[in-house]
């Protein structure tokens, strides 16, 4: 008798499995059609590191205080600085980040008191040539140009850190800025209208 | 009659021809860059530990053995099935006897654990 029960049980469960898959066959796909659609990146997104410039003057916010360099766990940041004879303040003469070893930890952003360095939601940074992995100051500044942010107050108490907000543009930052690395992104561009997709309000919502 | 099977014979040639022509065509356009590692056997990213033309375990063999016997039996079933209705009960009983003997064989094999994968 138990054999019969086992068999019927087995068949029932086999059919149950089939039911699950066929149920999903008629559900909406949750796939992001990448080059055409993109997620709206969350504000805190920790992608490519950029240097922020002052919105009015266009100058880098960085005061070359070297805090980020010290904080970086992988020593990806190298800063050289010089004292500006006029203002008697330090200014970075070269600011490179080795994106080949950066681990996108965000400690540099946390260390900087001048809202000068930030991790953004940019992620389309693939390249053909390894030497381009080392981002120099100009490039970092270029990347940071369209990044919106709020100048951070000198935070005394470290609680409830108000984050600089950033709304990354979804289109190719690099292709737009038309810089040295712009070649070879045609297929990402020519897909026409790029839709922005909010992250799923759980897939159920779409059915 | 011979015409029927001539088709089969010619189809053999057509199939082989098709595949060989595809291979040949592929040969024309594919690259060929051999290197010593490439011509070694693949074994999950290591060089093989030993030659693999090795002597294999008996377990599959027993199944093949039993299979031969039952395959032969199937051969007898087909002509019987084709004329069964015309011959009626007698043929059916005959076949029952035939089947019974072989089912006995199956049961024997079962009991002897020849069907067991040990």
């Amino acid at each position: 008798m138990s054999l019969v029960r086992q068999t019927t049980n087995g068949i029932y469960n086999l059919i149950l499995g089939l039911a699950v898959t066929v149920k999903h066959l008629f559900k909406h796909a949750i796939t992001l059609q990448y080059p055409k659609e993109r997620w709206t990146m969350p504000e805190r997104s920790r992608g490519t590191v950029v240097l922020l410039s002052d919105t009015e003057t266009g100058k880098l916010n960085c005061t070359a205080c070297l805090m980020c360099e010290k904080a970086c766990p992988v020593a990806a940041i190298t800063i050289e600085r010089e004292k500006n004879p006029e203002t008697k303040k330090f200014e970075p003469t070269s600011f490179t980040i080795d994106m080949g070893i950066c681990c996108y930890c965000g400690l540099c952003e946390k260390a900087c008191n001048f809202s000068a360095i930030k991790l953004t939601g940019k992620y389309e940074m693939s390249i053909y040539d390894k030497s381009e992995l080392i981002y120099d100051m100009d490039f970092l500044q270029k990347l940071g140009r369209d990044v919106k942010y709020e100048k951070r107050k000198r935070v005394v108490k470290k609680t409830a850190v108000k984050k600089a907000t950033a709304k990354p543009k979804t289109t190719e930052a690099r292709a737009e800025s038309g810089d040295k690395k712009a070649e070879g992104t045609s297929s990402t561009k020519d897909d026409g209208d790029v839709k922005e997709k909010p992250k799923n309000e759980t897939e159920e919502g779409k059915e | 009659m011979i015409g029927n099977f001539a088709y089969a014979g010619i189809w053999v040639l057509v199939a082989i021809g098709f595949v060989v022509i595809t291979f040949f065509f592929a040969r024309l356009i594919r690259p060929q860059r051999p290197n010593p590692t490439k011509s070694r056997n693949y074994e999950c990213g290591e060089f093989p530990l030993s030659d693999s033309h090795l002597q294999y375990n008996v377990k599959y063999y027993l199944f093949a053995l039993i299979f031969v016997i039952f395959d032969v039996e199937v051969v007898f079933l087909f002509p019987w099935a084709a004329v069964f209705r015309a011959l009626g009960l007698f043929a059916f009983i005959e076949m029952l006897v035939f089947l019974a003997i072989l089912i006995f064989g199956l049961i024997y094999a079962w009991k002897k654990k020849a069907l067991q994968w040990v």
Partner: protein
Amino acid sequence: MDSEGLLKYITEEYKDKIIDSGIVGGVATIEVKPGDWESIAEYLKGDMETRFLSVSNYGAVDYREKLGGYQLVITLFSYEFNHKLTMKTLLPAEGEECPEIKTLSAVWPVADWFERETAELFGIVFVGHPDPRHLMLDEDWDGEYPMRRGWSGRDFITKPDK
């Protein structure tokens, strides 16, 4: 038993073998002589009051600068009584020397890999280890012990002090 009780029990039981004892970071800790390393391990495992059937952690610390040797640290643990004990021993060594000690892999099979790792990284020889091959390092590693302090070797780049 809580840590103190355990410590008390053990120090009383194995008085003659324990050099030092105390509670470090909430864990009962004893220090033994390298010679007693294996025998006391066996006792601790077999003792019905302690029943240290499992090893929670097992490693070495390079204390050559401070204490003149390597310290082996093993944290034992009992599922039954839910108590743990750290046992330490100091293997005196100078410079590039490789100190020796009896293996524990016969007492706890799990110590096997821990010891292999420690052996290749610190250069401590575990006498009687059943399988003294490299565990983590390449098969053709040149035989130096990278976890020793101050080691440097093939394309090893120390993080620049910025």
